């Protein structure tokens, strides 16, 4: 009961303090708002990048062409050896014989159809192939090299240049966004430390009297922590609205794809709600950490 009464007092005092130092509170709320908007954009961008990187990675296949003169035994042996490579997704290994490839190509166009029909099995330029997917896309070139060394393997293709560049570009974009988010959060924490510091100095006299009449340290500190959390909460209102409606509008405007059909955006629901939730939690946490820092630094009790 006593704890609840004291917490009630802390929340009341914190709200009073926010209203009493309104201009100052407004300043830090605006800073939190701006930071959180950028944080929200960074989160949404980073999740989207992650999403379509994964989509692309899912589709990424290594194609293995075998030598012309392979026997059926060779094919089974090569398949075994491919499956033994740790990075190879074993269930994804698919074999397509010359005949399969031929039929597939014939279905694709009439030109192929007529040309291919003239060749029989012995003089066909087509080769028996395996299609393989990997577990870790970043190691795809290593895996391809290992496959190439297997006996009777002719060539290995996986769209090297384009895929490598795309993956490294996305991973550096991701790193930059994380860096920006972390820097902004740190700046906001310092801003909140400053705001709470001013509240503390404005209430120095009151704190001194609280101390004299036997308030515990917990009682003295809690209102400031709660104040920081309230600043964080108030600062996250605009970013939450921005996140939900902004992303919805963005998604509708681009019809779910960014620039090309290749880059698919994440569906707004429930993505916007979880992002809004994360933004609120970051706001409150940042407010709490900032005020805790100020209390530790400036409240000598």
């Amino acid at each position, binding site marked *: 009961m*006593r*704890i609840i*009464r*004291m917490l009630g*007092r802390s929340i009341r005092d914190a709200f009073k303090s926010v209203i009493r130092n309104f201009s100052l509170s407004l300043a830090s709320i605006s800073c939190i708002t701006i930071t959180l908007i950028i944080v929200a954009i960074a989160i949404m961008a980073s999740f989207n990048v992650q999403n379509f990187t994964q989509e692309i990675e899912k589709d990424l296949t290594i194609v293995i062409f075998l030598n012309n003169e392979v026997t059926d035994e060779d094919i089974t042996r090569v398949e075994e050896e491919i499956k033994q490579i740790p990075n190879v997704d074993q269930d994804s290994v698919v074999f397509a014989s010359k005949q399969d490839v031929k039929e597939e190509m014939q279905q694709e166009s009439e030109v192929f159809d007529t040309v291919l029909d003239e060749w029989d099995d012995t003089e066909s330029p087509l080769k028996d192939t395996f299609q393989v997917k990997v577990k870790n896309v970043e190691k795809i070139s290593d895996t391809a090299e290992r496959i190439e060394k297997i006996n009777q393997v002719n060539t290995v293709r996986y769209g090297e240049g384009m895929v490598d560049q795309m993956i490294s570009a996305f991973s550096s974009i991701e790193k930059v966004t994380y860096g920006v988010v972390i820097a902004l959060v740190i700046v906001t924490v310092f801003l909140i430390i400053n705001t709470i510091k001013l509240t503390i100095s404005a209430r120095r*006299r*009151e704190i*001194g*009297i*609280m*101390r*004299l*009449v*036997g*308030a*515990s*340290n917990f*009682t003295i500190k809690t209102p400031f922590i709660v104040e920081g959390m309230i600043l964080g909460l108030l600062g996250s209102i605009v970013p939450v609205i921005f996140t939900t409606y902004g992303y919805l509008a963005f998604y509708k405007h681009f019809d779910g794809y960014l620039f090309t059909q290749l880059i698919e955006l994440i569906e707004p629901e429930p993505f916007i709600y979880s992002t809004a939730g994360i933004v609120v939690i970051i706001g409150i946490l940042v407010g709490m950490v900032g005020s805790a820092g100020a209390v530790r630094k400036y409240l000598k*009790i």
Partner: protein
Amino acid sequence: MDLIRLKNVSKKYKNGVTAIYDLNLAIEKGSFTFVIGGSGSGKSTLIKMLYREERPTKGQIIVGGLDVAKLRNTKVYKLRRKLGIVFQDYRLLPKLTVYENVAFAMEVIGATKEVTRRNVLRALEEVGLKNKVHNYPDQLSGGEQQRVAIARAIVNNPKLLLCDEPTGNLDPERSMEIMKVLDNINKTRGTTIIMATHDKEIVNSMKKQVVTLKDGHLVNFKKKGTYIDENN
């Protein structure tokens, strides 16, 4: 029974000034004690050590069973809840009314509204300010403000009331009013009172226990004392 016991207490400040030399003292429960001495005699330091604003450099201080010198910063509130403190400059919160100022002392230790209301009104009645509960401190005279501070100090029913020059800012007439209030609290509540002062008139007219300090040394401890002029 002794409420306060000091054993070989010395206090040396960081700037090198020694305020108290090897002080031994025992104060009985329910007594009314004046601590007198000129400026720099160490009386304020003694009071400050009793409520653990300062720690003694050497020696032991026991207040109501608590070893004050060893009390950790985070546990000081346990001592403060056993005592009330009154200062020369009142230390009221200007934005709170008389009632709120006194209730503040109960709120911060988590008392319920009903208990707070009962105790606050009782304390304000004892200091004679029941008709001014809704006034703000700046609407009161110095003597009245000091009585609000006294009400705040006694509202939690402390065993001990420490007063550091409570009449220092008041004229002799107001000072005597404050003394009557304190004397009344001592008699009706049985609160032990220790009061630091340099007001000769008050000490002589009250006829209470007197501790005399000079340059940090205890020079006199009398059951029914008067002010000893330092020139004698």
